[in-house]
């Protein structure tokens, strides 16, 4: 699948924003994070800023952004619509919470924090399900996919929390969720490597009973939308190198730096956040580039 930069930016930025919102809400609910001082409200602003940046970037991915309101209507069947509905609903408690912190009145904010945390988790789950529900792409159509989205959002958001509001809670939140994401992602890569695809060009053309099928003349002389969007492929050795980059930059180095940070102070979190940003963009790019679409069986792929 073609890795569109707007979608990569959307899922990584809003993912980190929702992760940060989630931990902030949970921390505030349990009394570990208080609204006193400027840093908490700045952290909440960063979370909402990242979410908004992501949502705006996803709107740029649309051919008709001015009609985007219509996308809230089909939540009964469409995960994309559900994501939109929950994302907007989450702004209500999160926005109120932000206003209350900004103007220094804190009695209901833990409850708003809880609502925002639930909204954040459900939104990211919906994002994951948009991909996981597509049976046309076997690398996406897996039960692990929404959990990877959730773990990575929690991990990158946890790192931001550890940088902006350093505490043992923040460090543990980042450690646990990044660790979980690493385990899930390694299992995911193993899974997709072991799955050769269950559909063949013979099934796609229905000509299997007559023999093996290979393309002779293409239907068009230059690539069309279906080939450009669904036929994007990354070379295997290139992908393996990028997986290593993602493993190092997203998991190994940040996890190590969180440990260092627990003793040496929050400065160690600055490179951790920067590395994780590179790592998560690489991971998301690969999530698209390694995905193979069944329609490519008509364009010369033997299996998908």
């Amino acid at each position: 699948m073609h890795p569109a930069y707007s979608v990569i930016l959307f899922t990584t930025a809003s993912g980190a924003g929702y992760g940060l919102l989630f931990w902030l809400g949970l921390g505030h609910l349990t009394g570990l994070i208080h609204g006193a001082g400027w840093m908490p409200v700045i952290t909440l602003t960063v979370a909402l800023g990242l979410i908004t940046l992501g949502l705006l970037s996803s709107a740029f991915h649309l051919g008709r952004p001015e009609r985007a309101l219509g996308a809230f209507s089909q939540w009964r069947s469409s995960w994309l619509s559900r994501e939109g509905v929950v994302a907007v609903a989450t702004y209500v408690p999160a926005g109120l919470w932000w206003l209350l912190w900004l103007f220094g009145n804190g009695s209901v904010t833990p409850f708003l924090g809880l609502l925002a945390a639930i909204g954040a988790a459900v939104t990211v789950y919906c994002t994951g399900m948009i991909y996981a529900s597509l049976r046309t792409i076997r690398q996406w159509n897996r039960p692990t996919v929404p959990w990877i989205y959730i773990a990575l959002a929690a991990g990158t958001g946890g790192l931001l929390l550890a940088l902006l509001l350093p505490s043992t809670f923040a460090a543990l939140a980042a450690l646990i969720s990044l660790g979980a994401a690493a385990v899930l992602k390694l299992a995911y890569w193993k899974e997709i490597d072991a799955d050769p695809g269950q559909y063949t060009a013979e099934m796609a053309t229905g000509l299997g009973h007559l023999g093996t099928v290979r393309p002779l003349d293409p239907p068009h002389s230059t690539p069309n939308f279906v080939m450009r969007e669904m036929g994007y492929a990354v070379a295997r050795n290139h992908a393996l190198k990028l997986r290593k980059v993602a493993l190092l930059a997203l998991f190994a180095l940040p996890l190590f730096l969180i440990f260092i940070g627990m003793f040496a102070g929050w400065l160690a979190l600055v490179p951790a956040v920067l590395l994780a940003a590179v790592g998560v963009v690489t991971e998301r790019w690969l999530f698209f580039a390694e995905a193979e679409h069944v329609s490519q069986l008509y364009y010369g792929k033997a299996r998908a």
Partner: protein
Amino acid sequence: MTTLPETTGKKLGLVIDLDKCVGCHACATSCKEWNTGGYSAPLSDHDPYGADPSGAWLNRIHSYEVESGPISKTVHFPRSCLHCEEPACVTVCPTGASYKREADGIVLVNPDTCIGCKLCSWACPYGAREYDHDDGVMKKCTLCVDRIYNETIPEEDRVPACVRACPTGARAFGDLGDPDSEVSQEVEARGGFNLLDEFGYKPVNKYLPPRFAKVDTPAPQIVEKEPVAPQNGSAVEKLFAWVDRALSS
């Protein structure tokens, strides 16, 4: 509404005879011609006569080689939306722009509400939807909904443009939900099949299989003979014939 209708009154669709199709692309060209002025906004067409043409087409004609033992066969293979009975291209749509009609089962995109998110094209295993970069909306086969019910055109034209254009009669249009319809009868008689049946979207369009030459038919014997110069000509011709033989032996 992007939830699917439980049943549709009719199941209108195409039957494509792979034994007759000669891969002439007339159906695709005629489709583009009709639909660029039809139901939705015009179909984009970039650099059509240049080195890098691109644009939205609703019908694409592949040619495959099917290899079986010593014999291989060219199969021309038109591919367009199959108006599936249970397609996720409809249910994933966030706006309701992608829908399946309850009356006749045609799957359409509403060009006035589509936001161009492209998710429906991701959900189609047949690669049948093409995004239009000019209009910012998704395009797909409409089964020529603006022809088949159109009382302002002559009755013989009230079939999809591709069916009307096909010079070999490889394309037929009708109600595949009615077992007595001509198309259903033909599918029954010829062993018509679904594309990627295993995927489970239940396509309405059907394909009729190409026939193969029998593998055990002996290849005709061709006896190669050296051409011989005519023998009974004039003395000069005989002389040349003698020189020719002398030189070539």
